[in-house]
């Protein structure tokens, strides 16, 4: 069995984002790039499944659409334990193009399970996983908080608003994973970092594809008004404000 984890390369979650070119482009200056937190958890779960020798998982591959600049992040995934990587050498103008490029690059690679994180922390789209499944013409399961393999096949837990369901789908499928899929992201050990240097990254040239959407400009949030402080002794006043002035309780 082969698992693919799709990976996005995002600014570290503590980054103070800034824009250049008249608010048209992210200012890359000083940004520390990391594996998207959800994808890191997806990778962790894939590796846990592979570690379980009875599971039959032979390889865990990561795939990424991005230019050569994202190779250090791919190396991190290899250091954490992925066996190999595929990089589609293209910019990522929108999710549609990313998913289409991924689908073309992996269509003939016979992955049984494909994991995608629920969202990427840059454009917060929640879109690549479902799009990829549709391009591949296979099943998808969203809101997945657990994937297990047992004698009967794959057992997936998904969390729909208000209920938790245990479901199964035929291979191959895309699982779009969220909170619960793994507890803590796995951290690269020294040995992993050494081994990552020689693990293969296959570079695939992209298809020419047009995006369906385009960011025209970015805006910074309107700053919130300064916090109004209420004395701890007069905590009751706060409740009156919320009731009488803001009418939220």
């Amino acid at each position: 069995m082969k698992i693919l984890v799709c990976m996005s390369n995002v600014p570290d979650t503590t980054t103070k984002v800034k824009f250049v070119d008249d608010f048209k482009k992210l200012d890359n200056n000083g940004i520390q790039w990391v594996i998207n937190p959800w994808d890191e958890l997806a990778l962790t779960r894939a590796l846990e499944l592979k570690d379980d020798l009875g599971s039959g998982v032979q390889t865990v591959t990561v795939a990424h659409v991005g230019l050569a600049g994202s190779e250090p992040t791919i190396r991190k995934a290899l250091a954490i334990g992925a066996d190999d990587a595929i990089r589609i050498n293209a910019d990522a103008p929108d999710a549609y193009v990313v998913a289409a490029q991924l689908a073309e690059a992996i269509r003939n690679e016979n992955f049984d399970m494909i994991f995608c994180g629920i969202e990427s922390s840059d454009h917060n789209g929640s879109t690549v996983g479902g799009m990829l499944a549709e391009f591949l013409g296979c099943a998808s399961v969203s809101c997945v908080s657990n994937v297990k393999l047992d004698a009967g096949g794959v057992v997936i837990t998904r969390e729909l608003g208000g209920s938790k369901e245990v479901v199964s789908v035929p291979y191959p499928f895309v699982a779009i994973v969220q909170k619960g899929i793994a507890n803590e992201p796995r951290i690269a050990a020294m040995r992993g970092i050494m081994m990552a240097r020689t693990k293969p990254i296959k570079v695939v040239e992209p298809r020419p594809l047009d995006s369906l959407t385009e960011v025209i400009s970015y805006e910074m949030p309107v700053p919130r008004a300064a916090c109004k402080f209420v004395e701890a002794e007069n905590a009751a006043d706060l409740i009156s404000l919320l009731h009488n002035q803001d009418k939220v309780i």
Partner: protein
Amino acid sequence: MAVLIYLENWDGKFKKLSFELVSYASKIAEMLGSQSLALTIGNVEEQELEKLSVHGADKVLHLKNEKLDTLDEQAFSNLVADVARKYNATVLVLSNNNSGKALAPRLSVQLKAGLVSGVSKLPVSVSPFVVYKKVYSGKAYANVQIKTDLKILTLAQNSFELIHNPKPYVVEHLNIQPSDNLLNTKVKEVQKLTGKVLLSDADIVVSGGRGMKSADNWGPLVELADLLGAATACSRPVSDEGWRPHEEHTGQTGKIIAPNLYFAIGISGATQHLAGISSSKIIVAVNSDKDAPIFEAAQYGIVGDAMKVLPKLVDAVKELKLR
């Protein structure tokens, strides 16, 4: 030309977010001078369907089929795509909740329609079609143009006011069969979460962080939530420690919510926490450290010990209820 709305239902019932979505889509239909069509799949009573016209749906499309009692992403998205083609939809809107996130991306590929998810306002313009959405987990916003003829949007929860816009109730019961070869999701077990206010639906959320000090201190926080009809939530270290269940974890790697009122009790306000709650309409922070970053995000703040402040808040709410 039509604006097609896909509405999930929960055991045949709609929620506030369903009516937000109808209100929103009907406004877009007005902007475009077209009709709004509200589609739902499953067993829904007539009187529930009628509620959709109250919020502006020109026509309700109802599709019932016993094969569709569980969400199969491939089968459902194919059906919605069929309906979108049949009614010549130019805009398709879904909620940015679990089912919307599951279906919208597949629809985007099937219909080759540009998708923007998590929009929080009416389109900035309809020609060109530009929408506004949160990016970088709330640290910025983007104006995004959709270049295709058919546009797909998912609406962020609690971002659009309900509109009372009654239309005559017109319903069409659709008779479209799902293709059996696409129905592949087998459900083995269903566990319903009952009796609690769901975090994703709550108008008020009372949330605790590491400043609550231990699992044993949660009594007054839960009491405050109960009195307010609120859901309870927590920061990541709290659920990691097992003080509170994982479902309550909010933030970048937990739930992303946008209630009308969010109480952050003993939460420092780390950027990853704010990523999950910054769209709340009002944030109230209680923290013993006057320099805690949460006060920069909050409208109201109390500097003090949570264990002393919570009982005061509880008493004040009790008093309010007696009045």
